[in-house]
């Protein structure tokens, strides 16, 4: 009559880390079942034995261990996969799911790796979803902070959590996001998988979600009437909806006096504008509309391009692509090799190309400015999409000159204005507080 144990055993017959240990408690045999890659077996055994010593019977032991007693086989299997310890008595009459002493598989709270915080608290989110939510709860002591959790996915059930402040976030928004999260029936592996659940933006470079690694930033978003999502095993808070101002401001700015905060943010705006417009402006001014400068300036520009065989558009697109390649290559390479790319790239771009008369001096300056400027915005995701936006404008500039730059810029603005996530436009600066506290 060992059918439950047998059934479990046959299910996991090709898992070599699966264990069934027999123990004797109060003259009755019990089976401890689980994965030794997820459970610290010696310590858990000790724990069970200690509780057993103070319990009068097997039944009492089970009650002392956990309140999930006598569940069906289905749930037992699920619990084993989740890394729980399952104990079954020999006569198969009783079973229990115990929270064991787990193998330490996640890192502890560390410093932020993707965002650098200056003059701010230095802890960042980690992989464990519970720790992440705990970090928010610790900083935001209010009963109005609500938390709903979901398990979604087809093959693998992934845990998602939604946090919001009741009375701040509009109720309609909570309702909609709740619906959208419940409806997920495919596997959520990456942010883009999740992003797709919020409606049609497949071909858009702008995500519905903005990521942050810093608890302070997540809490600030919550207070600004937004929703924060967490994915299990993903060390970022996902703020919904993503708004344009996220690109220019982080809460840590405000640890400085107001004027400095203002300055920082203005610089980021200038950076974003420069990234989008500068290369196109160079092409327009050099090749299509040289006449709008004063004569001396126009002469200077023309002189810098003396003897260069490539057309202004080709030259610019070449440089822009090389720079984007370098930026990507630095990310891909191991940390010890990365600097060499920077050095080689610097030499090629800075000197060799100019001396070979492939590109003009002025263009090198422009490109350098663009690279620096594009990195000034907050968040890698935003920096990337800003870098993408410059290409269409560049093409328009080569066709229409200044007019092309300008229409390209207006078109970009119109495109960004047309983006909405759950009826909240991307270009809003704040979400009206509509929720009620009831």
């Amino acid at each position: 009559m060992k059918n439950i144990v047998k059934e479990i055993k046959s299910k996991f017959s090709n898992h070599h880390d699966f264990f069934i240990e027999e123990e004797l408690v109060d003259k009755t045999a019990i089976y401890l079942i689980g994965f030794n890659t997820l459970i610290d077996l010696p310590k858990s055994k000790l724990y069970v034995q200690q509780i057993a010593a103070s319990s009068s019977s097997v039944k009492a032991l089970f009650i002392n261990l956990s309140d999930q007693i006598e569940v069906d086989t289905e749930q037992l299997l699920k619990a084993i996969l989740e890394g729980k310890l399952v104990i079954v008595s020999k006569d198969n009459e009783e079973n229990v799911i115990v929270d064991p002493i787990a193998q330490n598989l996640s890192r502890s709270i560390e410093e932020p790796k993707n965002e650098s915080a200056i003059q701010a608290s230095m802890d960042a989110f980690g992989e464990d979803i519970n720790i992440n939510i705990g970090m928010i709860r610790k900083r935001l002591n209010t009963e109005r902070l609500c938390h709903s959790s979901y398990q979604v996915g087809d093959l693998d059930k992934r845990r998602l959590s939604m946090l919001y402040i009741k009375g701040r976030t509009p109720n309609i928004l909570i309702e909609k996001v709740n619906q959208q999260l419940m409806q997920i029936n495919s596997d959520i592996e990456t942010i883009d998988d999740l992003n797709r659940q919020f409606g049609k933006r497949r071909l858009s470079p702008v995500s519905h979600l903005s990521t942050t690694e810093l608890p302070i930033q997540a809490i600030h978003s919550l207070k600004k009437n937004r929703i924060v999502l967490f994915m299990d095993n993903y060390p970022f808070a996902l703020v919904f909806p993503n708004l344009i101002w996220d690109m220019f401001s982080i809460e840590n700015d405000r640890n400085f006096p107001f004027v400095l905060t203002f300055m920082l943010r203005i610089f980021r705006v200038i950076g974003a504008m420069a990234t989008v417009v500068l290369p196109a402006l160079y092409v327009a001014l050099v090749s299509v509309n040289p006449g709008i400068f004063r004569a001396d300036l126009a002469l200077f520009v023309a002189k810098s391009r003396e003897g260069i065989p490539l057309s202004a558009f080709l030259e610019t697109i070449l440089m822009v692509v090389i720079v984007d390649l370098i930026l990507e290559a630095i990310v891909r390479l191991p940390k010890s090799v990365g600097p060499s790319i920077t050095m080689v790239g610097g030499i090629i771009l800075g000197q060799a190309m100019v001396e070979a008369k492939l590109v003009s001096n002025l263009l090198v300056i422009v490109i350098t400015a663009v690279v620096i400027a594009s990195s000034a915005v907050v968040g890698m995701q935003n920096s990337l999409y800003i870098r993408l936006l410059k290409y269409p404008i560049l093409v328009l500039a080569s066709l229409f000159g200044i007019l092309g730059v300008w229409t390209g810029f207006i078109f970009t603005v119109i495109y960004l204005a047309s983006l909405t996530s759950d009826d909240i436009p991307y270009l809003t600066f704040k979400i009206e507080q509509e929720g009620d506290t009831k």
Partner: protein
Amino acid sequence: MTQRIQIVIVFILIQLSIGYLVYPNLIYALTKTAHWEVVMFQGFLQWILIWIYIKGLNYFPENDVIDIYLKMGRWATIIILTPFVINLIALVAFNIRLHTEVIISVFLPRTPYWSILILLYFISVYTAIKGLGTIFRSSIFIFLIVIPLVLFNIFSSVINFDIHNVTPAWNSPARFLFNIKFFYLLGFSSFLFLGFMASKTKLSFRQLFIACASVTLFFLSVVYIPLFIFGQDTVVTLTNPFLEAMDSVEISWFSFNRQTMFFGLSLVGLVIVANSVMLWMISQVMRKIVTSRRVKSSYWIIAFSVISFVFAFFVPNQSLVEKFFLWSTGAQAYSMIVIPFTIFIYGFLSKRGVIRYEK
């Protein structure tokens, strides 16, 4: 999330777009002295029409103009709004073509006009398809960029002023009232789109008054800057007096050669907003008159923009464009008088209970 400030901004932008190019010519044709009287009078008339229009619209909360006409009856809607739509198509066509001519003369003298026409049409149609919310949001950003350019243009031209060019400033023969061109002048307004948003926020007169006042100020500057620089006798001979005025300005410390570039840039921003609003209005009317579920409003926009593109494409030269543009604004003035009055009278009567309509 329509807000009043957005409505006001779009209102101002459309006015500027339509008024920038042809408005001064009309004024110079109407009177030789005391131009400000004509401008102020036009502003005043427009203000009265807006007042009547808003009053009429407020009788029907959460309804737009088309809904109100549909209450009157289907045929009434078709009779009154079909000329309006045709007129809008023409206005879109000639407005874009007119701007294209100026843009070519400012930026790209060697580029064929159809390529710029296509560029402007593409962006306007895209914006119109994306809907009113997109138009509003993008117009705020366009406003923030364009208005400083406009102001810069206006203030930088002060250095060329000669005060004697505009004397005598006090002479008021009211003859201009009977000139057909004054009727055209009335068409240089854009308030009709106010009725196309079934807005839950009631429009307030105060904000619209500020908008109207600033637009009138702008019109005054558009009329008077060429006057101050060239004088009445020269100005009547120029095709684009404001453009020439901008071209004459030279600031020595400024690193750009010509002020006209900024003028051209602001024109592009304005014309995109104005035309996308007009295309959107067309689509709204058609969507509500032809209640077919299969035809989306974006199809209407594309179809009508193709028609108006054909119009714009086949006009041979600039003087014809200008003439057609004036005709279409004149026809627009007709709608501007008819629509507010019919709405107002209908609203007034139905409030008194003379006409009963089913809810």
